[in-house]
């Protein structure tokens, strides 16, 4: 590490201290982030986010408040594509999904704020539907074989 890097790190440390005094991170926030490690699963392949209509428009800071009625996302892992549409608002929010290529599969909905996950089955055409929690982040896990030994999971979706 050269001298500039050291000075830089020092400055960052000082700045961090300052921020911590002025606007500290709420303990619950830190707690939630620490709990995130429990969600680490080594049995699943990550499905990358290919597209998210919420990211198409302007910056997230500006978007808040301008309520879109429909949000659509696509995830992909190998040959499997998972398309998800989120309909409705708040407690009435649901997700409609489509697996491509279409097939029957077990789909688990995980919510970062809840220990319990819910499970739905897709139909012959690869379609599924599930209720969503009102807040927080979610992800979907799709069984990639009938025995449920291998899973594909989407990256976390902030609702």
């Amino acid at each position: 590490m050269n001298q500039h890097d050291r000075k830089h790190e020092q400055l960052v440390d000082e700045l961090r201290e300052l921020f911590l005094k002025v606007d500290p991170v709420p303990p619950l926030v830190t707690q939630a982030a620490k709990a995130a490690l429990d969600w680490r699963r080594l049995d699943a392949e990550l499905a990358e986010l290919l597209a998210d209509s919420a990211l198409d428009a302007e910056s997230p800071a500006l978007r808040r408040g301008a309520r879109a009625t429909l949000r659509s996302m696509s995830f992909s892992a190998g040959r499997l594509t998972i398309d998800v549409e989120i309909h409705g608002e708040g407690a009435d929010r649901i997700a409609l999904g489509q697996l491509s290529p279409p097939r029957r599969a077990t789909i688990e909905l995980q919510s970062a704020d809840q220990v319990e996950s819910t499970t739905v089955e897709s139909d012959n055409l690869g379609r599924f539907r599930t209720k969503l929690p009102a807040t927080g982040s979610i992800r979907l896990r799709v069984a990639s074989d009938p025995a449920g030994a291998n899973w594909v999971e989407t990256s976390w979706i902030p609702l």
Partner: protein
Amino acid sequence: LSGGAELEKLVRGARAGDESAWGAIVDRSQALVWATTRAHRLPRASAADVAQTTGLQLVENLDRIKDPGIVARTRRSPELAWINSVKEDE
């Protein structure tokens, strides 16, 4: 240990499921995440959502971090870009 080497060790620990290593990463990174979202004037509830999602996404990408030092460095954070300008003026 330099900041980068220490973080590399922490990231290795977190990959292996070591909660205290992960906790140390969180303590170091959340202050910046929080400050960044607040600098964007996000309300506290939204900033909390962002902080949680950032933690979750860091976990799901633990195996793909090539340069663990980047987690603690702020060069890529636009809100703190002025630090770099200070550095360049030296």
